[in-house]
């Protein structure tokens, strides 16, 4: 099983694509209704998936320092708002039209709204875009999206897990408290990080992993999603401890995240894909267009030139890990299982379409350039 996942990752790497859609595809093929049957899912995949989602969100939170979050919000709030309105709306509308109910529509809105930081970061690194003018615009948009998620996820999770108004209020206050602590500039590391980080690499690794899993379990007990708790923990760590934790957790995250995507795919009944495929295609096309518009507009406001705007627009099309996390939340909570099927198809399509679009832009630019040289 792991060998299979490794092979998939290598293939994806060769094609210059993120392995996420491939893991999903493997899950689809091995799950109910698929051409191959897996006799036993095996405890590892299931547990691995739970750890995977915790690690995914922990590392997403670790990425940014409070200063970057505050500065990103300050400079990018307008583009972020445009991003939110343009891209969540189609999801919400589709959810209502398809009869997923209010909560289902809210979940689908989140699924279509958020671009994949993972896929985009990989694109930027692989194609050498780090120094490009539009990279700042794209990364700032992703920061705002993450901040929105920090508020959206706890609320959605609380609503999905059937929490009462009291539970929802508790979730929101928790988030508000974390955001206040986050966005206020801090000159010193909180004391507890010293206790955790002034140690050997192994101790740090086990320590941070242990803390996240324990907090996750506690969160589950309290009716808050473990994944969300992990995300918030990640956000509160920054600076050198965050860099170190990210470096140490990276390989673990890749391993367990693969299990998570595989597990998600396994739950999807391929037979049920049929009716949903058209909806996924339509939604995919619509929200690809809205992301293109968002990227174009945001890059233009930052003074980026024509080609840069096209690159930014193409990059943002990518959807990935976060969308699957939201879909998993929805499915586990017992919402319409078509949400899971739709999301799997949707993410697979756009996780591949995004990078392909970027490469198409680069190819077009190369052609325009040689035309200019020879013409």
């Amino acid at each position: 099983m792991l060998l299979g996942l490794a092979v998939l990752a290598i293939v994806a790497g060769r094609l210059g694509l993120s392995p996420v859609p491939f893991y999903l595809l493997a899950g689809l093929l091995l799950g109910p209704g698929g051409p191959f049957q897996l006799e036993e899912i095996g405890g590892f995949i299931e547990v691995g998936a739970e750890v995977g989602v915790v690690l995914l969100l922990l590392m997403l939170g670790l990425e940014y320092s409070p200063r970057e979050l505050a500065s990103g919000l300050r400079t990018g709030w307008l583009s972020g708002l445009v991003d939110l309105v343009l891209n969540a709306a189609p999801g919400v509308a589709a959810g209502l039209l398809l009869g997923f109910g209010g909560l289902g529509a809210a979940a689908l809105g989140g699924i279509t709204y958020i671009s994949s930081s993972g896929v985009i970061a990989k694109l930027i690194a692989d194609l050498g875009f780090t120094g490009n003018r539009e990279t700042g615009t794209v990364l700032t948009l992703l920061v705002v999206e993450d901040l929105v998620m920090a508020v959206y996820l706890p609320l959605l999770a609380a609503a999905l897990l059937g929490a009462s108004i009291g539970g929802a209020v508790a979730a929101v206050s928790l988030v508000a408290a974390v955001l206040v602590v986050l966005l206020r500039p801090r000159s010193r590391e909180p004391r507890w990080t010293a206790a955790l980080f002034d140690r050997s690499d192994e101790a740090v690794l086990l320590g941070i992993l242990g803390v996240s899993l324990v907090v996750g379990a506690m969160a589950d007990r309290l009716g808050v999603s473990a994944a969300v708790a992990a995300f918030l923990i990640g956000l509160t760590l920054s600076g050198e401890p965050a860099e170190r934790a990210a470096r140490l957790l990276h390989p673990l995250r890749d391993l367990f995240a693969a299990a998570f995507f595989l597990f998600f795919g396994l739950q999807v009944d391929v037979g049920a894909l049929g009716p949903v495929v058209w909806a996924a295609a339509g939604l995919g096309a619509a929200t690809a267009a809205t992301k293109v518009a968002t990227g174009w507009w945001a890059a233009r406001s930052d003074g980026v030139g024509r080609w840069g705007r096209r690159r930014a627009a193409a990059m943002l099309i990518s959807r990935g890990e976060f969308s699957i996390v939201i879909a998993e939340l929805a499915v586990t909570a017992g919402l319409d299982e078509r949400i899971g099927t739709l999301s799997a198809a949707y993410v697979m399509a756009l996780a591949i379409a995004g990078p392909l679009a970027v490469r198409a832009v680069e190819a077009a630019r190369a052609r325009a350039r040689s035309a200019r040289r020879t013409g």
Partner: protein
Amino acid sequence: MKPVEETDLPGVGTRFTFETERRRVLGVIRHHDGRREVFVADDDDPDCVAVAVSLSEGEAHLFADLLGGTEISREAAALAQGVAGLTVDWVEVPPDTAAAGSTIGQLQVRTRTGASVVAVLRGEAAHPAPGPEFRLEEGDVVLVVGTSAGTTEAAGLLQSGRSAP
């Protein structure tokens, strides 16, 4: 010269670019992990990187030195000092002068010139804020701070043991 553009790359570092007189765009990315990436933008599409090289911190310092970094920072420091109205001077105490062997108090640098002795560098060691009982030796490098006239007088005082006429 056009101003340097600075952009935040959240989760990565900071990006600096500037445009040369010949309309080429050069840039540096300061990664959070200490790496520096130097790049040259494409001349057709200056928003896009044509060539990028990643440098470790040590390599970045080397590159900066090759570009004349130490000269640049010294000149910049001199400029800042002139503008602020304060001058800083490093004065070496020559052999066979009244200063070598006298204490700062005996020389009465501050009373006579208005400039202050902020530090004395002796060999490898630095002696910050030396008191009036500190005895100077030949070869010491004395750091004086004051007005332009004051530091010139202090330099004369230290190098001859007498105030400049």
